[in-house]
């Protein structure tokens, strides 16, 4: 019997064509109808899958409604409710496992940063600024964990975590390395050796502590943080003496200076921190004296995949909102999404995001994050995200640059991920440095 063209097309679709196969052949065809997101989620272990679903729900419920206003008027919204909600849901204590934290135990042993990365993507999909507000806090905590000092972990981190998760009282931490004259220098070995740093710590034998002087700039959550992990060189020494100090809000001499006016990620502040004879007791020294440089570089190894995941989230946010636009908008008699050139572009965006996600998940699916993997994932994901955001804006024509659609916000947010946590140029050098003796050694035959 002769069939119509539509009927033949329908018959040739894999799902229907599978019916012609025998039972064993059919078993090997995956015909499950599920979204891109669901497909990826199904590949995760139970513990991480749970956090991914939880983060998606939280992002839609808490971040989405707040995002447009927090971006437009960053000084007029109150961040405390969302910080409190995130703390209550356990998102602020994901860097330790129960009973001290909330991360799922088995996945944590296989990849300490993985759960934070998965959550970061979901948050950033809705809003880059609010995602940074919630995640920069983890960046402030990592130096304490990586110091390997039980004194720091038990004395500082545990009370902080309990207050946050059990009592649901929002607490926030920040990480301060960048100085006005040293941005890239504090993220790269050769630059570090020549860096001109101004923040110094002088030992006070009478009070048994250190006196901090200097300035840090572009500190995410700097104005909101209750505690800041600050890196300073010891007096009359170079960056080799860099030591990490835990500075608390309210310490005399510690103040917040200018908050920068940024192009994107505006819901989170980037502030200048001023240290004017700030006395820091010895118990607030994080790890060993002079271990700050190693600690800082390792913090970056753990944070870069998360930054990559946030970038991925910005790209995904732009993609999802663009997709929504293409579904709803007509061009002539047809929906935009029904045109094949539009389908090709959307598919290209989805493929790029998939590739970036694969790389990020691969880079942090081990207990210790390593320099080249983290740097590569961050570079690839941030470049990909910016590209995808541009594609989304272009596909929407003049609508792309309107704030109301949320795509241009994702575009602005994504641009920062190519800069912070080391510019992408610095990150490329990090990959090279890591494998200098194995792959890139000029003397190697």
């Amino acid at each position, binding site marked *: 019997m002769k069939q119509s063209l539509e009927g033949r097309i329908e018959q040739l679709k894999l799902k229907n064509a599978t019916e012609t196969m025998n039972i064993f052949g059919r078993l090997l065809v995956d015909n499950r109808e599920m979204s891109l997101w669901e497909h990826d989620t199904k590949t995760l272990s139970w513990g991480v899958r749970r956090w991914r679903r939880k983060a998606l729900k939280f992002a839609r419920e808490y971040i989405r409604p707040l995002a447009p206003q927090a971006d*437009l008027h960053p000084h007029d919204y109150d961040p405390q409710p969302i910080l409190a909600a995130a703390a209550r849901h356990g998102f602020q204590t994901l860097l330790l496992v129960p009973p001290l934290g909330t991360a799922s135990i088995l996945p944590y042993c296989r990849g300490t940063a993985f759960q934070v990365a998965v959550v970061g993507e979901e948050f950033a999909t809705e809003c880059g600024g609010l995602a940074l507000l919630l995640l920069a806090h983890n960046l402030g905590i990592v130096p304490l964990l990586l110091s390997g000092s039980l004194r720091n972990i038990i004395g500082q981190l545990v009370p902080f975590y309990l207050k946050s998760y059990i009592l649901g009282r929002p607490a926030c931490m920040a990480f301060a390395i*960048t100085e006005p*004259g*040293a*941005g*890239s*220098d504090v993220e*790269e070995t*050769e*630059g570090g050796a*020549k*860096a*001109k740093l101004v923040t110094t710590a002088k030992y006070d034998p009478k009070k048994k502590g250190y006196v901090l002087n200097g300035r840090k*700039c*572009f500190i995410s959550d700097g104005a909101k943080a209750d505690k800041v992990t600050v890196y300073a060189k010891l007096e009359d020494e170079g960056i080799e003496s860099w030591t990490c100090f835990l500075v608390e809000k309210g310490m005399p001499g510690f103040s917040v200076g200018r908050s*920068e*006016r*940024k*192009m*994107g990620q505006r819901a989170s502040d*980037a502030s200048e921190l001023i240290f004017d004879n700030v006395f820091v007791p010895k118990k607030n020294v994080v790890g060993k004296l002079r271990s700050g440089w190693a600690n800082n570089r390792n913090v970056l190894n753990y944070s870069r995949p998360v930054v990559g995941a946030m970038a991925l989230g910005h790209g995904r946010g732009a993609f999802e909102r663009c997709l929504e636009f293409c579904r709803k*908008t*007509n*061009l*002539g*008699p*047809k929906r935009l999404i029904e*045109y094949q*050139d*539009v389908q090709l*572009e959307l598919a290209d965006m989805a493929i790029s995001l998939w590739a970036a996600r694969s790389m990020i998940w691969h880079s942090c699916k081990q207990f210790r994050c390593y320099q080249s993997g983290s740097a590569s994932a961050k570079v690839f994901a941030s470049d990909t995200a*910016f590209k995808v955001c*541009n594609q989304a*804006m*272009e*596909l*929407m*024509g*003049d*609508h*792309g*640059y*309107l*704030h*109301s659609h949320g795509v*241009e916000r994702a*575009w*602005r947010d994504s*641009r*920062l991920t*190519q*800069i*912070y946590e080391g*510019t*992408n*140029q610095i990150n*490329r*050098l990090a990959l090279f440095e890591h494998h200098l003796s194995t792959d890139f050694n000029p003397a190697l035959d």
Partner: protein
Amino acid sequence: MDKEPVSGICAVDVMHYQDLARQYAKKSLLPIFQGEYSDGNLSLLPEKLNTAFDIGIAATPDESLAGCQYGIWGGALDETGIMPSALLLSVIAETCGGVAMCLHAQGVASNLLLGAKRKLPFVPVRVALCLQEGFYPPFIGTVISPDQDAPAKITTTAVQTNKHYIMNGSKSFVYSMNDVDAYIVFALVNGTWGCFIVNAYENGVEMMDVGVRTGLRACRVEHVKFNNLKIPLEARIDDGDARELVIRALNLNWTGMAAIAAGIAKGASAAARRYAAERYQGGKQIEEHPAVKMLIAGAEASVASAEAALFALQDGNLGSLKHLKKTAAAKLSVMELCSRAVTDCLQIFGGYGYMEDYGMEKRLRDVTVLKSASGSPTYLKQFIFDIEKEGVL
């Protein structure tokens, strides 16, 4: 290139136009950016735009004003070619893309009126062009036949009665200076294109601002609605079919936008060079770092290519489809080159590039808006392909 003579215009003229624009940018526009404003202090803008009319940079249909002939896209355009206006826009855009867009939008609409060479029902000073509907300008099929779904027909209609036309419909993304006196509206009249001058203050004309935008914030963007608007018969400015005017409007629009993008990228690359010579990292000026050298060199090469593509449009016939294909290709490639150049230049500034103080993020926002505005890359590719396919050349 500014020392080489080009067809239709000599080197002295080129330098004169550039000097004029530089003086305007320096004396009038730079003060807008004093203080903490990401897009300049826009409350000062009306005064600065008035200056543009006074010194003859802004074109206008009003022949009593200085810019009528030699302002941006003024009446002398067919005699001088696109070069003078493109240069003026480019130099102004080095300082502010948004102001350049204001002057450009004013110029395009003025040029259509000045070319009409007929007595108008009234002579406006500030004008804006209403061509686009939905989120793209008309595709080539619609340019040829506005009543065909190719893929989207024109829905703004003007129906002739005894004494006037009745206009209904809406136009989107109309770029203008603030407070325009008149709109130049393209509408469907008996299956063909018609072009009308519409008094902005008439009952039945409704404007709606598009809201917060990424960039080009000095320029107003609005949607305009026409509800049973009565237009006198003499307000129609074409001779029975305005298709050639549509083509001319698209040509001018895309050429000007490409010139603005080239100017923004040129400004960004100059700023990046200056910064690279001042900023120290790793114990030396950052211009000594290979990564920075590569970014600057790439940006400068992109700007040179963009200018070459732009100035190759000098001798075209603005009313022809053949030239429109070249212009569409120029907009497509110039936007790509310039946006890449600007983002690379921003990268040189590191974290400072992302902050509003250095003006780099504004340049990136502006150039990105230009890329999507009035013909995105997706649309332009389709347009370029369809011109040949439709067999209209």
